[in-house]
């Protein structure tokens, strides 16, 4: 039994109970992946803001935009992702971790210690906030893959990170990776979003892009890992709605080696973006068209060349098409994209003011945050709103590619393939 990490935590959060944290009184550690094997239903609110000039803004902007949309959630989940927030570690991957207990932390850290060079490990700075309780152990790690270990795997650093995320989420009981990208981080938990924002001291961070989410789950006990945003590497996704095509979307992704451990629609959307943008190298506009396809009647009226592209996209990516009500904001290191479902069954409003692009579920958020918006509009169904920070390479997914052997391994069972892939070194 080690009390050291616990003592380290004491100054910033309330003291957790020993039964919860030590597992010594017979309390069973949850396996987070298994905790949500059922589908999570819910409605939600969201926002995204990006200054295309690259000017940083305080996380307080995001908190204010969410506070006016409080009624879109029920206090069972809120979260944020900020980009450009770690200028002192721009080239490190930053793991935001949630641990159920110290054993989970030790297990996950064993993986970090073995395969990574960790340059800073520290508890997440937090403050006591009314309404926030029962937080897991929250830590962050600035790290890079151990070059020697990496060499043996024939993987790029990004591949290595993805494998580590999958490994921890699927096999380290009680540990959950909240985010894993460079110069970004996700801050989420159970509570109203403004409470969560204050809890994580977001006003002290400055980023060029923020996305945020307010959750209204209807049939699941809120748990910290299940809050939005959902992230993979630099990408963070927040989502309002229920994807009625979840069943086939997840089966489609499973065939590409993704493992839908959370049972959430949002995770599916994140994986689909990864598949289309990174692995299949589709332009963002076309990936959006595949996710929220135009109707056949519209495609039939397109010019021949465009029609051939759209017909192929629908025929090939049909199993990945997101059907049902949704509004999604995807943040990345260089901007954000917001997308509505194909017949606009969920609200999404957009606004611009100078170089700032903002989207939200409700116009109230724009009116709260923007002094004098140049334009406020309702994006059409399936029409993406895209904001890109000038001068930043896009899309930033680095040298990420899963090898052919990994893919074929993944066909027979993702969990095993992830483990063997990491163990290769």
């Amino acid at each position, binding site marked *: 039994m080690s009390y050291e990490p616990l003592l380290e935590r004491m100054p910033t959060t309330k003291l957790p109970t020993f039964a919860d944290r030590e597992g010594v009184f017979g309390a069973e550690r949850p396996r987070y992946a298994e905790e949500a094997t059922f589908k999570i239903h819910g409605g939600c609110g969201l926002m995204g803001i990006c200054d295309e000039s690259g000017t940083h803004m305080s996380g307080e902007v995001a908190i204010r935009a969410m506070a006016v949309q409080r009624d879109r959630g029920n206090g069972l989940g809120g979260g944020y992702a900020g980009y450009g927030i770690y200028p002192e570690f721009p080239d490190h991957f930053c793991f935001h971790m949630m641990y159920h207990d110290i054993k989970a932390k030790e297990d996950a850290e064993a993986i970090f210690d073995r395969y990574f060079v960790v340059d800073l490990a520290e508890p997440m700075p937090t403050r006591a906030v009314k309404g926030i309780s029962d937080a897991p152990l929250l830590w962050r790690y600035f790290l890079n893959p151990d070059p020697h270990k990496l060499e043996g795997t024939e993987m790029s650093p990004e591949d290595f990170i993805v494998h580590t995320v999958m490994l921890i989420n699927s096999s380290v009981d009680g540990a959950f990776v909240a985010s894993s990208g460079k110069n970004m981080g996700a801050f989420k938990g159970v509570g109203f979003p403004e409470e969560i924002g204050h809890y994580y001291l977001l006003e002290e961070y400055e980023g060029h892009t923020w996305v945020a989410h307010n959750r209204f789950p209807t049939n699941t006990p809120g748990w910290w890992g299940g809050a939005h945003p959902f992230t993979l590497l630099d990408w963070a996704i927040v989502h309002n709605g229920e994807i009625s095509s979840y069943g*086939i979307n997840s089966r489609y992704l499973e065939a590409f080696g993704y493992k839908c451990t959370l049972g959430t629609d949002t995770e599916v959307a994140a994986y689909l973006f990864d598949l289309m943008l990174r692995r299949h190298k589709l332009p963002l506009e076309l990936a959006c068209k595949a996710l929220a396809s135009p109707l056949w009647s519209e495609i039939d009226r397109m010019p021949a060349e465009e029609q051939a592209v759209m017909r192929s996209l629908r025929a090939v990516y049909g199993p990945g098409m997101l059907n049902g009500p949704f509004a999604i904001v995807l943040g990345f290191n260089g901007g954000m994209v917001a997308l509505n479902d194909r017949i606009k069954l969920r609200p999404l409003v957009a606004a611009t003011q100078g170089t700032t692009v903002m989207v939200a579920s409700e116009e109230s958020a724009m009116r709260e945050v923007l002094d004098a918006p140049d334009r406020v509009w309702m994006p059409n169904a399936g029409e993406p709103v895209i904001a890109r920070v000038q001068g930043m390479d896009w899309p930033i997914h680095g040298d990420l590619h899963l090898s052919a052997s990994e893919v074929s391994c993944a066909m*027979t069972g993702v969990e095993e393939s992830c483990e063997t892939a990491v163990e290769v070194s």
Partner: protein
Amino acid sequence: MPISLIQPEYKVEIDYDKCHKCGRCVQQCGWGVYSFNERPIPDDSKCRACHRCVTYCPAHCITIRKNDLAYKENEHWNPGLRKAVWRQAESGGVMLTGMGNDKPYRNIFDHLVLDACQVTNPSIDPLREPMELRTYLGRKPDSVEVESDGNGGYRLAEGDDIARNIQLETPIIFSPMSYGSVSLNVHRSLAMAAQRLGTLMNTGEGGLHADLYPYADNVIVQVASGRFGVNPDYLNRGAAMEIKIGQGAKPGIGGHLPGEKINREVSETRMIPQGTDAISPAPHHDIYSIEDLRQLIYSLKEATGYKPVGVKIAAVHNVAAIASGIVRAGADYVYLDGFRGGTGAAPQIIRDHIGIPIEVAIAVVDQRLRDEGIRNQASIIAAGSIRSSADLAKAIALGADVCAIGSAALMALGCHLCQGCHTGSCSWGITTQKPELTRRIDPEWGAERLVNLVHAWSHELQEILGALGVNAVESLRGSRERLRAVGLDQQTCEILGVKPAGL
């Protein structure tokens, strides 16, 4: 001794008080039930309960009843088994029958229920919103590669693979029924309906009559073990080609079309002498394993400038591995025929005891192809027997791309499932070549009824999609999360990949 120990199955009762004595029943019955002596006199033993006479009697005075003889109670030796023994003791032959397996095996479709949206996601009203059923049949690439067109748009970088797919406006096609087993007017009806519906009919193994050449874009041409009617011209007259390996009603055995059905036109279409029996061998004698199948698939593609080639198999125990091999052999679609599938003629013992349910076959094949990462390489057509739009929706949710209907299509043309197809005396003019019977189907009338049926099921499928909150059929396809099982055992649920209701 009596000639036969078997008593008639049905009793034909005529209310002579109402009877017009017009003799229409005599004229309508293909089985020769009626003779006429001042009034129609029925011979019960010939009746097959096809209801042709009942339907056409102007006085509505004919009733067909089950000849409900009491047999000594015996759950083990049911009357059907007793009659079969008597019949075979008389004939010494294999019992033949038509249509599909009628035994009371548990029907899995009837133990699956669909989901619907409530509150957290909205259902969609198909009367107000678009509800898309368009389906592409054939091989699809893993991904789409595009390049900039220089004007801010994109064009396909690697050719248009989907252009080789067949575009269907609804995920319902007609299943293969050969000219010879069914009449030319049935083929005409199917072809006309397929064209109007934007879907496909299938020649079956009897070739394509020259009259149907204009419908080439809506026809699958079949290549079966007898190779009837197969020539390069025939192959090029189809939108796709299909290698028939097996049939759900008679897996593992061949076919036999008696010489009486081979009239001049059938003979010309099948390219065999008039009046000779058309015998399809049980296997293809050039396909003794999967590598041989690959050669035939590519021979057909070479002969046609790479049109899609599908392979039809009966659903049998090892169907998943077989289907995987077929896809890897280069097939553009796999046609799975379940053990309830119909036939023009099959040994009853084969029809009723060989093969597995289509629901299971769809589930295991779809999952196997996904596990192997080749699901996109071929479409799955499911058949045998799809009885309603509910079966259709459930089959699609289990993983089928398209369903083929045969029995239901023939029922649209009047078939009453009397199971007498093999006799060649179909009173409804469907499974016969007798001119006085075949002319009973006006192709225009037949096509209209088929179009109506498919439209009706398509509308119902749209209603189901709307309730599920999706507006395109690809969002239901393989979405087993939208199915739940009621009253199926755990292992069957696992095989189907469907949770029990309540979970």
